[in-house]
């Protein structure tokens, strides 16, 4: 018993030290967003702002500068929500097809899709740009919404989940005269809500935080999502720490809020998404 308490004590000290390291950048960002630039640049660093100001937020969001953060924020919101909806529709349809319908070549196609996950995505970067260019989607939301929905990992997740639902459900519904589409919408969709929530969370967060691809397909400042936008912000406010940090803080708000409301799902989903049982 004594030994157990020592182990517990040591691990608590370790966790507290790590928590300190993890919380400092967050506190620094939040507090700096309320500091005036003069306070930040002064050689005497203070933890709390000497004078609390909200001007950084006003400037970053509403001032008519070459860094339209509010516009970027809205662009990101449109892109991320659209992609999430598109992915949910695609994966629930496909998951139903691969898990509950019988057709020729089903398993072969599915195994092929899974095998492509091993192939490094970096190879398709350059031709993908050409395709987007050909479609006229450069500087268009579509460029950030559609290609990301072609992935296969979420289909794997949804199919796994659907296979856990007894096939007898479908059979008895079919006896009652339900069509495939009715079984899909009325019976299966409500049952797979948990896994669809997980897919939605991952898709939204992934889309919101994507960096390399949007910085390639968006070169007009007004059209950009916020993640590549912030890179410009860093360059523009090269010496303006307060504004850059305020912009960074604004950019993390949506995924943070999403996490707060769905914390339980996030935790479950990550262990689920490892795809390996303990």
């Amino acid at each position, binding site marked *: 018993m004594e030994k157990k308490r020592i182990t517990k004590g040591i691990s608590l000290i370790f966790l507290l030290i*790590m928590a300190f390291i993890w919380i400092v950048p967050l506190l620094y960002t939040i507090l700096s967003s309320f500091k005036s630039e003069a306070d930040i640049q002064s050689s005497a660093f203070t933890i709390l702002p000497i004078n609390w100001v909200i001007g950084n937020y006003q400037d970053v969001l509403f001032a008519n500068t070459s860094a339209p953060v509010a516009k970027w924020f809205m662009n990101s919101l449109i892109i991320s929500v659209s992609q999430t909806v598109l992915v949910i529709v695609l994966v629930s349809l496909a998951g139903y097809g*691969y898990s509950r319908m019988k057709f020729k070549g089903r398993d072969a196609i599915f195994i092929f899709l899974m095998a492509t996950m091993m192939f490094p995505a970096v190879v398709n970067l350059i031709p993908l740009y050409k395709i987007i260019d050909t479609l006229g989607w450069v500087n268009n939301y579509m460029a950030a919404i559609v290609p990301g929905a072609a992935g296969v990992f979420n289909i794997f997740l949804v199919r796994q989940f659907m296979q856990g639902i007894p096939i007898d459900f479908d059979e008895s519904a079919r006896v009652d005269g339900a069509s495939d589409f009715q079984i899909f919408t009325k019976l299966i969709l409500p049952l797979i809500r948990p896994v669809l929530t997980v897919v939605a969370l991952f898709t939204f967060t992934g889309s919101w935080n994507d960096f*390399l691809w949007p910085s390639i397909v968006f070169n007009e400042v007004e059209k950009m999502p*916020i993640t590549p936008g*912030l890179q410009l912000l860093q360059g523009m406010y090269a010496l303006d720490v307060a504004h850059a940090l305020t912009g*960074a803080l604004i950019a*993390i708000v949506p995924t943070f809020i999403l996490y707060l409301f769905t914390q339980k799902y996030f*935790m479950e989903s990550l262990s689920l998404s490892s795809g390996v*049982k*303990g």
Partner: protein
Amino acid sequence: MINTGENKELSMSTAIMKNSRKKRLNLSPYLYIGPHLILFGIFFLFPTLYGIYISFTNWDLIGEPEFVGLANYAEILVNKDSTFYDQLRIGLGNTFKFVLFTVPACIIVPLLLAAGLNTKPKGLKFFQALFYMPTLFSVSAVMIVFAMLFSVSFGPINHYLNVDTNWLSTQPYAWFTLVIVTVWWTIGGNMIIYQAALNGISKDLYEAASIDGANSVQKFFKITLPSIRAQILYTVVITTIAQFNVYGQPLMLTKGGPTSSTTVLLMYIQENAFGSGISIAGIGAAMAVILGICIMIVSAIQFFFLRQRD
């Protein structure tokens, strides 16, 4: 009129459906998997294959690709006078360094955190949320914050350590900062996976070991680690693949410096294909293929090595 026409069509199609019920059943699955397969074909499969093809061409992203065989590969792999040869050597070397420096930390730190959290301390939920949270932030937001934290003149790190170290533009500090940032930013996912795995280990095993007189270190290596081997294998492979694709951290934090000592291959690929000036997409594609081959080989080695240890 229109209504009756529609009705007629409807009843006709029902009749056809009834007559060829088998045929209809064979087609309908493709309506479910089809939409995704189409997008997959256009936006993943085709560009991937085409990417391999253009690595054998001379291409500027605008005109027609001109087939040049292995010329791009010869240029970047053996032509010592070429800038692209240097770019590949430097970029790939730095990418490998980054993987080597970050992957062990991104496995060990979250494992220790998960083990700590597994003792169910007070404030468990708070700790868990805090360590997981950075994973939700975009690379550009995180890099702005760390660039400021590590700033020479006004950063709190130098202020409190009472030094004036140039963290971002002198070595080995630049590498040190990149590793710290990456660990801070990315360990959340692995931590949760380990937490779930540790939760699944039966308490009986530990009790039996205690009776046999095992101490906590022995228990960790003899019970804990073997029990979560599947998850460790998974996280090692996934983390390695993720780190090979490193781009945002050196781009924004160290700008690839000092003197290209942290310029990673994806930065050169991006620059060659999409940078200012005429695109040399063929060279960029060849670099991407080589990076892809490295990723596949390394993950295959890890997979077989970690699998066959038993």
